Structures are given as structure tokens and as C-alpha cells.
């Protein structure tokens, strides 16, 4: 131990010292539960008793053959198709607007975060009432002769859930884009203007490419989020209609806390985490560019 310490320079020791609290935190909060979760994935355990039975890979095999796993997978892809483009378009639009103003910018920027810090159960109940058959949204729409079955149509229920999640993350993603926009030197726009580039050309040739780090971060966040959607469908639709809003985490929750099969829930979670990681890896390969 002393020889290792001797090899390290004093500034390295300071560095390791500084990250030590985080390492300890990670070991307690992340690594230990992860290892424990992996260990129970190979067991049959009803979560409220002390008896655990080792059953090998049986849970993993069952998950792969579970039709609801594949339904949740299909629903997650549908969620992504609606959520990612919509959240990126709207949050970029908000960021561009915020970037143009100086008066009360911080007020608006932090104001958009209210949805992000709101309690999921509370706003899910509010949205459920607003979007119900005789809710305020349909009352407005009925004025122009339209009624939308937001949560009762199997075809659009997941899209409705995605809209609510977009609302929640709009402010957060906007701030990431705003930070990216403000890190782009204005001199680049000035040079482009002198070269005769119009606003649209500047947007597509300068802004979008230089926002690549922000796009990459938001893509990664959005994909991870898509695999973790829970509160909104759990509270509003319960996974219906016709399982059209079943998500991975709802299934994990159902098997662990309702069906009392924590081992199965844990193996489900491990498989979902692996798929989520693969998606993130793949998207980074496609989206991430070096803009230095």
C-alpha cells in the first residue's frame, strides 16, 4: 500500500482524495444494489419473506418468452418515435426563443423547470382529468366538432403519454440547448453573414452542427428515459387500453410488487438495462460528432 502511495504524485493523491466521497457514495447507492439485484435475478423470491430459492437462468428464459416483454418493447419504440422528435423540436424552439431575449431570461428558463420538478403522481392526475372524455381539452375541441380519445384509443394512448412526458422535460432539454446555443461564438455567425449566408443557412450550417454535443446528450437522456417511463402510464392508463401503454418498468413493478416475484422483476430489469445500453451505444455512434 505504501509503495502505491509513493508512486502517486501529490496532486494525483489530491485528485483521488477528492473523488473518494463520490466513489464511496457510488459503492453504497449504485454498485451494492446493482450486485444485489443481479444476485436475486437468479432466484425465486417473493420480496416480503426471507426465503429465496436459486433457480438459475429460469427467470431470464421466462422473460424472453413473455409476450408482455415484447409488447412493452414495441410500445417503447412507439414512445421514442413520438417523444424524441417532439421533445427535440419543441425544446430547441424554446431555447432559440430564450436565446433571443435578455430581459427576464433566467426567470423564464427556470420557470420552464417547474414541470421537471413537479410530482409525477400529481400532474398525472391533473392530465388524466384534463384529457378525459369530458375534460377541459375535449370540451374545447368539441367547439370545433372534434373529440379525441386521448387515453382510451389503443392507437394514440401511448402518443398521449409521450406528450405529457414532453411537457415534463421541455424545460430541462431547453436549458441544455440554451447552454449549447450560448457556447457558439457569435463571430462565426458574423463571418457567415459577411459571406452572404442567410438566417436559414446559418441555422442549418452553423447552429445545428455546433449543437451536436447538446443533441447527443438529449438523445441519450431521451433514450434512457424511454426505457424508464412509469409514473404517467401507471397512474393514467394502468397499461391499457389493450396493453398499448404497457412499459418495461410497469412490468418490472408488476412482477416485483404485485405478483411478488422479485427475481423475475430483477431479471426483467437486467435485460431492459442491457437493451437500453445497446440503444445508447448505437445512437452515440450515429449522432456524436467531434466539433472541436
Amino acid at each position, binding site marked *: 500500500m505504501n509503495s502505491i502511495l509513493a508512486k502517486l504524485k501529490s496532486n494525483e493523491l489530491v485528485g483521488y482524495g477528492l473523488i473518494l466521497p463520490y466513489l464511496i457514495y457510488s459503492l453504497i447507492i449504485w454498485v451494492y444494489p446493482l450486485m444485489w439485484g443481479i444476485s436475486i435475478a437468479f432466484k425465486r423470491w417473493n420480496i416480503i419473506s426471507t426465503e429465496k430459492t436459486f433457480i438459475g437462468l429460469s427467470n431470464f428464459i421466462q422473460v424472453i418468452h413473455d409476450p408482455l416483454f415484447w409488447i412493452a418493447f414495441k410500445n417503447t419504440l412507439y414512445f421514442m418515435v413520438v417523444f424524441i422528435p417532439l421533445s427535440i423540436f419543441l425544446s430547441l424552439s424554446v431555447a432559440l426563443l430564450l436565446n433571443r431575449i435578455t430581459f427576464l431570461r433566467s426567470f423564464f428558463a427556470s420557470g420552464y423547470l417547474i414541470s421537471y420538478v413537479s410530482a409525477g403522481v400529481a400532474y398525472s392526475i391533473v392530465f388524466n382529468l384534463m384529457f*378525459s372524455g369530458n375534460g377541459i381539452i375535449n370540451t374545447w375541441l368539441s367547439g370545433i366538432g372534434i373529440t379525441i380519445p386521448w387515453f382510451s384509443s389503443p392507437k394514440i394512448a401511448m402518443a398521449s403519454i409521450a406528450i405529457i412526458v414532453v411537457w415534463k422535460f421541455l424545460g430541462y432539454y431547453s436549458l441544455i440547448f440554451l447552454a449549447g446555443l450560448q457556447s457558439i461564438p457569435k463571430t462565426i455567425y458574423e463571418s457567415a453573414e459577411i459571406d452572404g449566408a442567410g438566417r436559414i443557412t446559418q441555422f442549418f450550417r452553423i447552429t445545428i452542427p455546433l449543437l451536436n454535443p447538446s443533441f447527443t446528450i438529449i438523445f441519450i437522456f431521451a433514450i434512457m428515459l424511454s426505457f424508464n417511463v412509469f409514473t404517467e402510464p401507471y397512474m393514467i392508463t394502468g397499461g391499457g387500453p389493450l396493453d398499448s401503454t404497457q412499459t418495461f418498468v410497469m412490468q418490472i413493478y408488476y412482477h416485483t410488487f404485485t405478483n411478488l416475484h422479485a427475481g423475475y422483476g430483477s431479471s426483467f430489469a437486467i435485460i431492459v438495462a442491457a437493451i437500453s445500453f445497446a440503444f445508447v451505444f448505437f445512437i452515440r455512434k450515429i449522432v456524436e460528432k467531434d466539433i472541436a
Partner: protein
Amino acid sequence: MNSYPQIISRHTASPFTSPFSNHLRSILLIALLASIPACTTKVDSQNITYWTAPSLELSRFEKIIVDEWNDSHPDSPIDWKTIPAGISSEEVLLTAIATKTGPDICANIFGGFASQLADAGVIVALDTLPGFWDLVAKRHMTNIIRNNWFYKGHVYVLPVYTNPEMIWYNKEILNAFNITVLPRTYGEFFDLLKVVCSASDMYGLHIDVSSKWYRRWFDYLTFYAAASGGSPYLDMDNKAAFFDQEAGIAVTTFFHKLFAKGYAPKFEIQDGFQKGLFLAAIKGAGDIVRTKRIYPELQYHIAPLLVPDNYPADSPIYTLAESKGLVLFNNTIQKDQAWDFMRHYFTDEHDSLWLAITNYLPVREDLLSNSIFKLYFEDNPEIKRYAVTTAFSVPLSITPHTVQIQTILNRELWQPIIYGIKSPLAASRDANSAINRILRSGP
């Protein structure tokens, strides 16, 4: 362009911190401070924690009982709170038990859930506690307990209330169409809907179309109890369900037709019946007090459930009665005091108060004969109608698979029927065989 140098210098210096202004820091600080009490709240170990259903009326009653107890028992006070929000009390409670944050006593527990908790060994067999049968006899519920509440040789729940379901008809709509005789059978009901719904924009029967598992107690299983003449929907001894038998298929066909004809919407309409958008709705006695509070002008008739066209004319019409009660957890430190509180809960005075505040019917065999309720029933004939129905109420089947069974019922039968993607026969058979597999898979 004049402000350009300042903007560049401000934002190139620290691009990622600039938007995080004082406002944002304030919000994050408030959120952090707000989370501290939640992390540090610690219940005094001498206190008995008691959770009840998150309902306005039930909370009014519980507050009185808990205050009364705390005034007379300062050495073993009750820490009372309502069950935190969630899809169902059962799921929230299971999560709490798993994370060791559950209560000592919990109300609002049905027999099936109690059997799940009993199998896991987390609740006390109440019949092993001193004075249990005396308490049951004093409350006049010995036969009810003996017939309906035993699980694997023991009683785990002290039932508080029963809530049989009946049908409400909007009086104003009936008067508008000069209808004086209420329908008894499915055929008569559809004939009535043909008249009412074709002449107006309204729907026929208000039903919760959501796929929440417990909702099936209040529509499909209630109608099953009526159609089957009070037979149980599960045979726990032979581990078999009856949904593919005559009664089950008749009920499935009824709901299939209701949705196919557009007499029930495929989306949820909050308080649709109370708002006059539906002719009829399935309601329990507990709905009366809430309706009176929120829609005091609403006038309605209460009638028995509908039955198939071939149901014998001279037979009584049965219904399903959800029934819930108190359980005591094994890890309770002050078990004797907690049991004392449970015994304190069940008195004639408390039952009278319970009935008046909540309108749910106390689980007692002397409900209609005991003088303590007589005056109340005379003043509230609509609640007496429900009390009379308790004689024809089918209890919920006690099985630890309740949630799984009703989740399957939703998936294989209820939702496909609403959206018309299965025939009634196919839906009944699919649900039945899937439920049989569940019943035969475990203990």
C-alpha cells in the same frame, strides 16, 4: 450588435452554467430543503402506526376514533395517516412492507390481499389473539367470519364494512321518457336504452373502462354474481374458474353488446352519471354520501342488478359485495396495545357513527334488526335498500391470486370486449383457461 461583445464574453466563459441563474438555484435549493424532512422523518417507536384508505369520509371517521383513543391512551398513541397515493392501496402497502416502512395496523384490506400477506407470514392470525371470538360475537358477525373470512384455518382480517353494488337510474331522465317500470333483465334494459339513447345524446350504463384490476369487482364480477344466482366465480377447492360457464358467457355477451351498440363509451367520463350523461350506473352504498356532497341536486332510483333474460322470475337477485377490514402486522412492537386499539374500534357506537359518516354498511348480521341502526335507516331509506341486499350478497373469493386473476380478466376478457376484438365466447374461454392456469400454478 452593440451588445455582442458582452454576450460572447459572458457565455463563452462558462457556457453550461450561465442559464442556471439565481432563480434556478433557488428552485433547486427549495427542492433540496423540501426533501430533507421526508428523508429524516422518524416515527416514535412507542407509537402504533395506523394506515387507512385515502377517502374524505373514511378519514373523518378515523380521525374521531384515533383522537378518542389517543386521549384515553397517552402511553400508546396512534400515529394515523392515509395510505399514500397510488393505483391501489394494495400495491402501495406491498411496496411499504418490502421497504420496511409499512404500518402496524392497516385498514382497507380485502380477504384476497390478506391471504397474500398471510402466505408471506407478515400478518397476525387474529383468531389466535385473546378475546377474538368474544369481539366477533359482540359485533354479531360470527357466522360471517366463519363462512367468509377463513384462510388456511385462520382469520387474518377483522372486516369493517361491506359494500354491495346496485344500479342507479337517473330519475329526471326516466321522468322525461315517462318510464315507470325499471328493467329487470338484459333484454328489458336494451329495450329501454333503444328508446332513451336514440332520442338523446346520452349513454346507457356508466362503466369504468380502465384496466385497473380492482375495477372488475364493480362491473363484470358484480354482474356475474347476479347472473349466476349468487354462485362464487372461483372454486378454490378444485382450483377452477367459472367464467366460461353459462352465467359468465351471458355477462360477457351483455357487456360486448353494450359497447358494440355504443351504449357505453370506450373512454372514461368522470362522474358521467352524476352529470346526467348516462341513464344508469353501478354504484355501492358508499357512493351515496359522496354524491350527496358533490351533486346534491341529483335524483336517482336504486334498483337490483340486471340478470339474463332466462333468469327465473321468482328468484332473488344477488350482487357482489366488496368487503374490507383491519389487519395487524407481525413486526408490530406494541402488539398488545395494537390489538387493544383494534378491539376499541369495534363498538355499537362506532358502527353507528361509521354508517352515518361513510354510508358503507358495517359487517354485522344484525344490521336490520339492531335498534341502534333503526332510526338511521328510517331517515335514509336509500341506504336501507343496500342493507336489505346484504342478505343476497356474494363475498369476494379469498385467493392470494386475486390481482393476477383480475389482471388476466382485464387482458383476456374485459379490454378485448370493449374494443370488440374477441367474441364473447372466445373472451370467456381465454380468460377462464388463463385463470385456471394461475390457480393451478401455486399454493
